[in-house]
């Protein structure tokens, strides 16, 4: 019996528990901006017009109380809407789905903890409350946790205690624990040297490691859920892991991570130990020294080869990030195709984020009077005009 309840179930049993939430989600799907909405927004000359045009869409009066709209306000308000929707889904969800939705938020929690940690490491007198406001609302901690993070800000020694007494209780504490464990095992250091490990230089490493541990853990969780959920989610997470690995390699070229002796010892641990590239691909990536090497490694993976081409192309319009975004949108849209699985929830959040990015980008272009550049970086969602749809045709 237990196994039945802890899995999403299939065609016959899914709706018992998750039917309503999925119905909600399918309803939310209609809220994505359509091609026609994008077109009318693109016609606008100022942000008040954008606001007016958005009233026609699912966003409605989402920033009605604001007099002067700016791209950042639009972002904030749109994010609020996403959070409201997500919280509603979460409140309706039952165990395995609820756990799944929580996993989605861990991603943002990592962002937030890193944000606060980095800030306090660099500048002990930082105004923690303004930081909390900047934190991603989906990964918000409870009030008490934040307060205690504030309480630890001052002393360097505090970080160790911070971990032991605060972070360990948070959902992402296990990733911290694992990271510290791995680190101390590797360097044969005393486990008490937490504060040293959390010091500035390893902040990036910490973040990458946390992200990696999170992806692996999430993948593992999806695997236990089994069925279609696992199948689709693993696809999505693997794609993400690959994107991370390729990005890390590409972005490390100008840094000390690319020095021959650190490539293996420093850069390789940053690669997630999962994904389509893992293990032989990441093994090869860890020896890459410049873009040409990277290109030759990726040649064996047609999808990534194509994505990487957009980076190598000298045109400024498309960067590798855009290409990855496009691919992510493509994959996430696919996740909506199947029913009776959880991947669509994850995809919903990711796609909505992309939509907010699109919206902010268009607004920025309008504000800065660079409307000719809007098409550079936006990936319409569920659009008939999406590049990958036309490619398949």
């Amino acid at each position, binding site marked *: 019996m237990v196994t039945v309840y802890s899995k999403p179930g299939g065609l016959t049993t899914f709706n018992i528990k998750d039917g309503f939430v999925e119905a909600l989600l399918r309803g939310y799907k209609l809220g994505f901006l359509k091609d026609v909405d994008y077109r009318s927004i693109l016609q606008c000359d100022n942000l008040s017009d954008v606001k007016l045009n958005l009233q026609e869409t699912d966003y409605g009066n989402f920033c009605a109380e604001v007099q002067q709209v*700016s791209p*950042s306000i639009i972002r904030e308000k749109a994010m609020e809407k996403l959070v409201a929707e997500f919280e509603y889904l979460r409140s309706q969800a039952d165990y395995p789905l609820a756990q799944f939705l929580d996993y989605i938020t861990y991603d943002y929690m990592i962002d937030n903890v890193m944000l606060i940690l980095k800030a306090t490491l*660099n*500048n*002990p*007198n930082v105004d923690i409350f303004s930081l909390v406001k900047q934190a991603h609302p989906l990964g918000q901690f409870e009030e008490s946790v934040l307060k205690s993070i504030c309480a630890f800000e001052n002393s360097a020694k505090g970080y160790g205690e911070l971990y032991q007494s605060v972070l360990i209780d948070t959902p992402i504490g296990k990733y911290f624990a694992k990271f510290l464990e791995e680190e101390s095992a590797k360097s044969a250091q005393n486990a008490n040297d937490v504060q040293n490990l959390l010091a500035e230089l390893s902040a990036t490493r910490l973040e990458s490691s946390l992200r990696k541990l999170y992806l692996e853990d999430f993948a593992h969780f999806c695997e236990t859920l089994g069925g279609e959920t696992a199948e689709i989610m693993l696809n999505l997470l693997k794609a993400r892991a690959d994107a991370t690995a390729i990005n890390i390699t590409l972005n490390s070229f100008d840094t000390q991570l690319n020095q021959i002796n650190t490539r293996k010892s420093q850069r390789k641990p940053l690669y997630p130990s999962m994904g389509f590239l893992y293990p032989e691909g990441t093994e090869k990536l860890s020896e890459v020294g410049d873009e040409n090497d990277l290109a030759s490694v990726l040649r064996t993976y047609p999808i990534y080869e194509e994505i990487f081409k957009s980076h190598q192309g000298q045109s400024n319009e498309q960067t590798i990030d855009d290409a990855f975004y496009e691919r992510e949108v493509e994959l996430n849209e696919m996740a909506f195709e199947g029913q009776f699985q959880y991947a669509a929830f994850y995809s919903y959040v990711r796609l909505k984020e992309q939509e907010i990015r699109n919206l902010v980008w268009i607004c920025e272009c309008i*504000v*800065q009077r660079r409307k000719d550049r809007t098409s550079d970086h936006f990936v319409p969602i569920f659009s008939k005009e999406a590049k990958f749809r036309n490619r398949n045709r």
Partner: protein
Amino acid sequence: MVKTKFVTQSDMKIGLIGDEDTVTGMLLAGIGHVDGQGKKNFLVVDSKVHIKDIEEHFHELTARKDISMILITQDCAELIRRAVDEFSHSAQMIPTVLEIPSKDTPYDPRKDGVMQRVAFFMPSAMASLGVEI
């Protein structure tokens, strides 16, 4: 009369007062400096920052010896126009106060004291900046 002898001095910082995006960009370029006491050479001005604080920070920057120039976005300069003008009319040459356009509001050379002076000598200056006089 101003008779300042300028000596060669390196490692001078660039002060900055502006909106978040401008500050972010400039800091990304690497002008940011925070000293041991947490004193910064930049100030992010948002809706929560008091005019008094901006002015204080401005004076603090002008008093520092290791600052060669202070960049201030025009909308911030507008908020403390009196202090900015006062400083530019004083005999102090270093740091130089530069008004730069902010991201959200288009640059208006008519409000910039330096540009006013420039236009006084060169009537075509304003026109070439795209402003009718």
